């Protein structure tokens, strides 16, 4: 494979990483906004949170992407940058799943914790910020970790609308070399490796979060392998 072809793959990799990371950040914003809205005392906010979660969980991210890229410009005259459209479509989708994670984790914080916060006369917002969320976030991380991997895999969708991500790059390489099995094999391994990196990072985050509650989490697979190598060396 020539240097030029490697370059396609490498640039594709960068786009895939950008889509995943920006998508995750924006998705997290949507997830918290919608998840907390659904728990709000305000009926309108609750309704908006519900509408968003139900709508975007049910919609195909790809179809949303078609709308953002092809329908918005023709019908509404709004042209989004392709990368931004990709990030937005993915974030809207993953945010809807994340919202349910946020809602579930916040509701799982025992009522007795809120009562203790009331007994200390915290304001409702202080109760949420100082007592409920710090505990809920710890419970959210394992689910968010899954969502992040889902998001990574969903980024491959954007190659359909000619965003030059990793999958798009691989298709170019395959077209010019004719080596289908080799190229797509490499692609398979590449996504697997990126996923492994993300899971490991999330695992670290999970451990740190658990430590913030004075708990310890057993070391993950990678940490165990490292430890074993160190021990045998």
């Amino acid at each position: 494979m020539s240097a030029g072809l490697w370059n396609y793959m490498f640039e594709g990799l960068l786009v895939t990483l950008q889509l995943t990371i920006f998508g995750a950040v924006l998705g997290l914003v949507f997830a918290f906004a919608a998840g907390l809205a659904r728990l709000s005392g305000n009926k309108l906010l609750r309704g908006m949170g519900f509408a968003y979660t139900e709508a975007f969980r049910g919609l195909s991210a790809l179809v949303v992407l078609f709308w953002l890229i092809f329908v918005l410009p023709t019908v509404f005259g709004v042209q989004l940058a392709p990368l931004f459209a990709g990030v937005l479509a993915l974030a809207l989708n993953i945010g809807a799943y994340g919202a349910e994670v946020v809602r579930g984790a916040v509701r799982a914080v025992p009522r007795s914790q809120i009562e203790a916060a009331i007994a200390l006369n915290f304001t409702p917002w202080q109760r949420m910020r100082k007592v409920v969320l710090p505990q809920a976030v710890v419970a959210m991380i394992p689910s968010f970790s899954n969502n992040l991997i889902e998001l990574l895999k969903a980024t491959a969708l954007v190659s359909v609308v000619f965003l030059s991500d990793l999958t798009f790059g691989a298709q170019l390489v395959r077209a010019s070399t004719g080596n289908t099995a080799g190229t797509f094999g490499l692609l398979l391994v590449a996504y697997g490796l990126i996923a492994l990196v993300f899971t490991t990072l999330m695992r670290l985050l999970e451990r740190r979060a658990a430590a913030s509650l004075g708990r310890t989490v057993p070391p993950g697979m990678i940490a165990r392998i490292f430890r074993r190598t160190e021990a045998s060396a």
Partner: protein
Amino acid sequence: MTEPSAAAAGSPGEKATSDDGFIVFDQISKRFGKNVVLDDLSFSVGSGERVTLIGPSGSGKTTILRMLMTLTKPDSGRIRVGEDYLYHEQRNGELVSAGEQHIRKVRGRITMVFQQYNLFPNMRVLRNVTEAPVHVLGRSQDEAEERAKELLDMVGLGDKLRAYPSQLSGGQQQRVAIARALAMDPDILLLDEVTSALDPELAAEVLDVLRDVALSSDITMLCVTHAMKFARDVSHRVLMFDQGRIIEAAPPAEMFDDPKQERTRTFLESVLDET
């Protein structure tokens, strides 16, 4: 079974506290579904008075404390604390349902220690005690920490400042919870079965701390407990609850040694059998 030694132990009776109506429950009713928990209940507690609420479970004792802490709202009736109603406020000369602002103002005088401690697991011991003084009372961090350390020393946990609650025993957690409550400088301290989740040895540690607090301060205390010896030692008055009503009220010596009501007698016998 009686406890003859208890009468000899420091009786709280020396300092007479009269009922000046500091806390007043006025015709309070509460039902959960069909179950009537409190039935048109009226009583009052004087400032500095220490009152123990006894009675079978489901008789409404804990509901009384939870109402004062604004965790459970009464269906009808009024509760007054000092000059203010807890769930009502004066607006244009009319008594209306109180807003969050008003409730927070009155609630600021009251705090509570819970059966299950309810420490914040995401904060170390020191921060559990300083967080509310800093962010609710507006104390400086230094001032709050200094006071927290004093209180944690007092409850025997001066060496656990950096521990997380999950690293402490139940008895230690409950003592932190007591320090956390006292750090708010409450006028009224509510104790809701604070030793029920602890085995006897750990319960004794906690009760010793509370006895010191009670006898060395003028905090008004309402206490739901099955620890009768403790109740005898610290309370000025004992209220016996049954089916949402107070059926007998007397100083502890009288209540425990010579109860007037048959229901009180059988209840006390059953409790003393347990211990």
